[in-house]
Structures are given as C-alpha cells and as structure tokens.
C-alpha cells in the first residue's frame, strides 16, 4: 500500500503501536560513533498483524550504569523511519511537555513514557519535529534494568522483552 497522506501515515503508526510485538533477532549492544555510547537495534515482528519494518532501538552510556537508557520503537514507511513510542529511563535531563492536555502541558518528567496514544492527538509534523513531544511519568518507575524490560513489555507491547541483554556497562571506564 502506498501511503499518501499524513492521516494514512498516522493510521499505520497507530496500528503498529497497538500491535503485539516479539523480538525476532536480538543483536547485542555495540559502541556508537561517540566514545562511551552504546547502541542496540533489534528487529520486531507482529505475529498477528504482519507489519513490516518495526524495530526496537536502544541507547545507553558505557560508564553510566542503570541510568540514561532510552528505548524507542520505530517503523519504516517507504524508507522513512518514524518514531512510534519511547521510554526514557533516568535521563540526564528531564523532559517538559510543550503540548498536551491540561495537567500534562508544562509537566516536567524524569523517567518518561512517550506513548503513541498521547502523541497521536497532535498532527504528524508536530509529532516528528518534537520526536513524540508528550510524555507521562514512567509508572511504575523501574528499579533496575530487568524491571525496565518489564516496562518495555507492558508499555511498548514487546512480549519477550526479557530477552534483551543488559548493556555492557563499565562504570570505571572513561
């Protein structure tokens, strides 16, 4: 199907966000372009909906264990990668909602869940420009990496998220 309008793209993103996902090929964490940067890329499958182009992407910092971890689900639509949902765990800098309903607009959040449901109230350009600009606190707040994986299952719908390896943190390395 050739997606033409923003609405059609948003519908494809909505469908992908709701779909139950499974990891089909779990690669390990690799060093990114920056020193100390760890990156992860995992292919996702949607057994019930057969949606192509879904990935889980992770970011962590080598010498910062148990903080500054981000996971986001992305969808490739004709070569363009869209961010579907994101979880930031104990980020260095908090997030402030520029948009959102009363109670959420202006809210400052530390560990955050950027859900597609919340962000789909915005137009596609605003979603892309702000990289899912509305977040709510990640609840419950994970106490360790294993609990973060439980959040991935509950919020991002990745049913076998516990298969993801912990980043190879080295607190003493600079």
């Amino acid at each position, binding site marked *: 199907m050739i997606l033409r309008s923003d609405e059609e793209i948003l519908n494809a993103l909505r469908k992908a966000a709701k779909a139950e996902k499974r990891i089909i090929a779990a690669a390990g964490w690799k060093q990114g372009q920056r020193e100390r940067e760890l990156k992860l890329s995992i292919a996702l499958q949607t057994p019930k909906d057969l949606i192509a182009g879904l990935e889980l992407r992770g970011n962590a910092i080598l010498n910062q264990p148990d903080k500054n971890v981000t996971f986001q689900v*992305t969808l490739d639509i004709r070569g363009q990668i869209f*961010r579907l949902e994101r979880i930031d765990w104990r980020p*260095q*800098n*908090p*997030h402030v909602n520029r948009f959102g309903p009363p109670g959420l607009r202006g809210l400052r959040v530390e560990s955050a869940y950027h859900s597609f449901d919340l962000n789909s109230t915005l137009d596609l350009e605003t979603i*892309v*420009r702000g990289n899912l*600009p509305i977040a709510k606190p990640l609840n419950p707040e994970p106490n360790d990496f294993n609990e973060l994986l439980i959040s991935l299952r509950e919020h991002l719908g990745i049913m076998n998220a516990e298969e993801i390896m912990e980043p190879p943190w080295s607190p003493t390395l600079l």
Partner: protein
Amino acid sequence: MVADSSLKKELSISEIATKVAKELSHVEIFDDGARIRTPVLMPSGRQISIRINAMEPKFLVSDDGVGYREAELMGAESNFRRYASIVSQQTGVQFNSFEFFELEAELDNLPGIVAIVADASRMAVQLTAEKLIENLGFEETAQIIEVLRHAFGTNRVNSDVEIRGASNETWHFDALVKADRKDIAVLRVKPSRNSVSSAYVKLDDVRRLDDAPVGVAALVRRPEFSPEQIILLNRASVIMDLNSPLRDWQRLAA
C-alpha cells in the same frame, strides 16, 4: 512540582517566584567540573544542561553532546552535524562533530556563555527537526513535481532546491521553475500552524529579494485551511491548490 494548591495560599508571590526560579535550573557537581541544567528546551521538550570545567584561569563550557544525542534519537545525526556547523559559524560557538563548546570563557561572562552554548545547541537541533519535517509528505512533493513538469516541461523544473532569501538565510523549496519571465519557487504547505508559519517565513524572505521569483504556496488539502491561514499565506505568495488544473499552473508564467 513547584507548589501544590495548599502551598499556594500560604506562599507569597515572591516566595513562589523564588521557588520557580530555583526549580528552573539545577546544579550537579562532579570530580572535574559541574553541570548546570538550564531552562532552555530542545524541540522535544528536553531541558538542556551545560557542563563547565575549570581550565585556569578560564573555563571550558560545553553542551556535553546533548544536541547530538537529541538528533541521534531522531535518527538525524548527519543533518545535525551539517546544521551544527552552520550554527557554529553564525554564533561563534565551536563545534567538534559531537559537542558545542567555548574553550576560554571568562569567569565574569560565564552565565552568558552558558546561555549562548545552550541556545546554539537548541538552534542546531531545531534546524535538524525542521529538515525532518521537510522530508514528510513525499507523495505530495512528487505530485507537485509531476504537475509542474507537465505544465512547464521537464527541463525547466528543478526539485528540492535551496534559495537564499533577503535575510541571507538559505531555505528549502520543493521546486524552482525556470520560466521565461520570472522563476517560480514552489513550496508545499499543509493546513497546520507549523507548516503555515514555516512557509510564510520562507516565502516572505524570498519575495524581498531584488530579483525575486514568484513564490507559490501549493496547498495540500485546501478545504482544511482556515481563512486566517489563507490570509497570511496570501500576503507572501500566490496561493495554488495542489490539485489545481494544469492551465492554472501555467498562468503563473504569464
């Protein structure tokens, strides 16, 4: 949280303002320096923190790569580097592929330098985010190019062009038609506030050139535009419906 409603009754406005100011920034001290969280926000809403390291007698002030990391999360590192270099030239803040920084900040000017570095980082991410938006709507862009090529001939239509406006800023347009009388610069506009305001800035800047092309706002989903949006765009451009018949497009060259 700054103050809950029960506190609101007990605190004076001066106390509330002081509390807000304290909450807006935050300092973290580590072995070889400190990090100050500023109230400056990235397009995503992330607060920008700036690192300071003492390098006697001056200071190193850096965004610690927070802008790069934002771009990385958007999948736009290459564009970020490109725009960061432009911002670096425009602001004088240095950039080394990952970080914005000032090497020799004076103690007396540190607050200002911290703000300048944070703002440079924000500007580069903002430009990167705008570039991502330009790449949306591939179908409409393809449609515009197809219509223009039918109307004016393939050789006269260049797609994805950069035009330098009167402000000296360079803007991306979807197409530039080399017509006999005057060039025609075409920009796709959607019925959203961001798209309209971004288009207005570009079209207005380009129409102020001495030898300005005819600026055209090609409206995607014309019925969804508000009268106010149409008024605004009409001030800076000729308005066309993306689905206008060929003869209407050809009139632009008349």
